[in-house]
């Protein structure tokens, strides 16, 4: 990584990095379901079951409690006054948040162990270790994409039209992906030295769920606390995501740009931390 690298070398390094990332991510996804009867289908089945569970929960179990709130005019969650489909829609609104949270959660819980699961690659061969945390992000991103497709399908099935703003979704999630990448590098590097990181992350993942509008609408938070929630990177993403899907509202370009800048900075910081910490991996693995 010295300054002696020519542009061609950097390009070549970048290409082989991406090729490796692609291969490893593909295998990582396949490996998850290898040996199971339904194989890759599970990637679709589990989210579908989740949707089913939430739909049941909010159309049957919590019907009385949440129904009024949903139907109330002016509520940000009111679905054009159609209370019949309203419950199912509420489940789908929740699902949108859950899909995004699940993406981040998978990255955060898997990253701390990703290096010492591959100790051989650290100690015995020359391997671009940077790629390993990125693989975790890529394979989680695949899961997120499937979740998105299922969500879209369910919405259409539920009789809701999707607007053109859906096209911005791949770009909308970029800041979150960058954040996840930065976090993956940092956690992967620290996880080698601090084995306690994995259990801690389970708690962090839960905290991220409750401090973002995953299970509740942002509007249900008192005004004075609302801005604090934006410290959670999921908050902006989930809110913007819902607005695109349900109300065909384009996200705030300025907020997105800010997210990109922060995300890039964080990813670069993560890469730097990983690069620095990498030198000691072989000493402790």
């Amino acid at each position: 990584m010295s300054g002696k690298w020519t542009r061609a070398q950097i390009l070549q390094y970048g290409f082989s990095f991406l090729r490796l990332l692609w291969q490893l991510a593909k295998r990582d996804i396949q490996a998850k379901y290898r040996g199971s009867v339904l194989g890759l289908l599970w990637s679709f089945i589990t989210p579908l079951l989740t949707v089913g569970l939430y739909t049941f929960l909010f159309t049957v179990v919590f019907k009385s409690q949440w129904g009024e709130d949903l139907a109330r005019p002016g509520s940000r969650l009111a679905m054009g006054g159609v209370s019949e489909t309203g419950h199912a829609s509420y489940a789908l609104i929740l699902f949108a948040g859950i899909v995004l949270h699940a993406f981040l959660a998978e990255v955060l819980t898997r990253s701390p162990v990703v290096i010492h699961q591959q100790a051989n690659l650290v100690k015995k061969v020359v391997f671009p270790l940077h790629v390993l945390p990125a693989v975790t992000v890529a394979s989680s991103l695949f899961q997120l994409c499937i979740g998105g497709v299922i969500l879209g399908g369910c919405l259409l099935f539920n009789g809701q039209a999707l607007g053109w703003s859906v096209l911005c979704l791949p770009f909308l999630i970029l800041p979150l992906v960058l954040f996840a990448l930065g976090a993956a590098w940092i956690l992967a590097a620290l996880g080698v030295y601090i084995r306690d990181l994995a259990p801690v992350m389970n708690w962090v993942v839960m905290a991220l769920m409750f401090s973002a509008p995953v299970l509740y609408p942002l509007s249900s938070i008192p005004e004075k606390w609302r801005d604090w929630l934006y410290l959670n990177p999921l908050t902006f993403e989930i809110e913007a995501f819902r607005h695109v899907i349900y109300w065909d509202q384009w996200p705030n370009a300025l907020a997105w740009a800010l997210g990109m800048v922060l995300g890039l900075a964080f990813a670069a910081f993560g890469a730097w931390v990983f690069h620095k910490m990498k030198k000691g991996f072989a000493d402790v693995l």
Partner: protein
Amino acid sequence: MSFEAQSKHQSSLAELDEQGVTLELAIDVTSVSKCYHLYARPIDRLKQFILPKVHGLFPRLARARYFEAFWSLRDVSLALGKGEVLGVVGVNGAGKSSLLQLICGVLQPTSGQIEVKGRIAALLELGAGFNPEFTGRENIRLNATLLGLSPKEIELKTPEIIEFSGIKDFIDQPVKTYSSGMYVRLAFSIATSVDPDILVIDEALSVGDGAFARKSFDRIMKLKDKGVTILFCSHNIYQVEALCQKAIWLHQGEIRAGGEAKAVCQKYNQFLDQQSLNSTSEQVEHSGEISNAVGNDKNQGVIDAPFQAYEGDQSDTSKASGVITPRIQSVKVSSADQTNAQGLVGPALHLVSEQSDLSIEVGFQASLDLPLPNVAVVIADAGGRNITSCSNFYDRLPLLVNERGQGVATVNFPKIQLLRGEYRVIVFLLCERAIHIYDSADVAQLVVTQPGLEIGLIALKREWSTKAP
């Protein structure tokens, strides 16, 4: 002391270079040191990252150190031109493996610089980069990507790699189902199929067993002839001498000697002999090296077997696949005066110094598809030190075989010139260049007695004369 030795080494390398055209360097190692930090707990490593910087801010605090340092290489320099073959010798723990790993880039030097030009194929830790869940084919793709091949090149090379590895039927199985032999075969095939510029070999000149061992040896030789730069690290001094122009001898992390392979190996041999005389503990290590050279674990059990009828392993696996691996079929060690009731007592052959004739008859099976093999006989002392050896290769007697590839080589030692002591006879079947070992057998123990009280190991042919002036 080490510094002198080092500068001497550099100058001798430079001299060698001057003889040729100005060499383009393939490997350039400049005063490299490697210090291992041994940490009690992983968290200590993290503290070591951060705390020195904190201490930098508050200089009055005591400096903390969370590791124990172990220097495995100190100030090592070497330069290797394109197409050169460098041998690295040294006892266990001398830093040979560290040096190879540093050159391959697996380890980072603590100080100093390493420059390597070209693609390295490392024959160390074969298969360590495999992902056990991946199939053989997927691992080929993955490894080749790591070695910097483009998808197109990989597509092109894959059939050749599969062909060479000889595990076509299993290539789409996960490699975790492979036997260790299949594992190294595949890894070797990948490493050597990617047109390497530099080949790094740790210990063995061949991998696998039987026919594949020969095939892998041939491939290494082919790469050598093609002008690939080779770094060869081995305990087997004979092979280093046979293969390398230059060598370095590492001792306790420092270069003890460097330069022409023959000279370095001689110095190293002297050192080993010295060691085995000085201490018995070193002797154990030394004998370990000999049995390394003997190789082929399957024959180790033969040591205690009656010497007269050593039968080569008939149920060789490669025989089933239709390829004959050259091997030793029988070895008969006998003495002409055996009938004098002096001969066989237990598994040892008793000889009288300068009276008994020793005859070693080696029956072997050669492969008609390969050039004729060579037979070598080594006589070593009980501690494993080689006393003497001979082979028909250097004695220039080509062996004869019948139409089935079987032959017998007999070597006679008339009036055996060994002094009293216990010796072992080890027989080798070697390739046509007398480098690759097809088979070996530690076949017999000799117990030599003598009427007189002469001391030493060898009774040289001699003529006395005297006169009274």
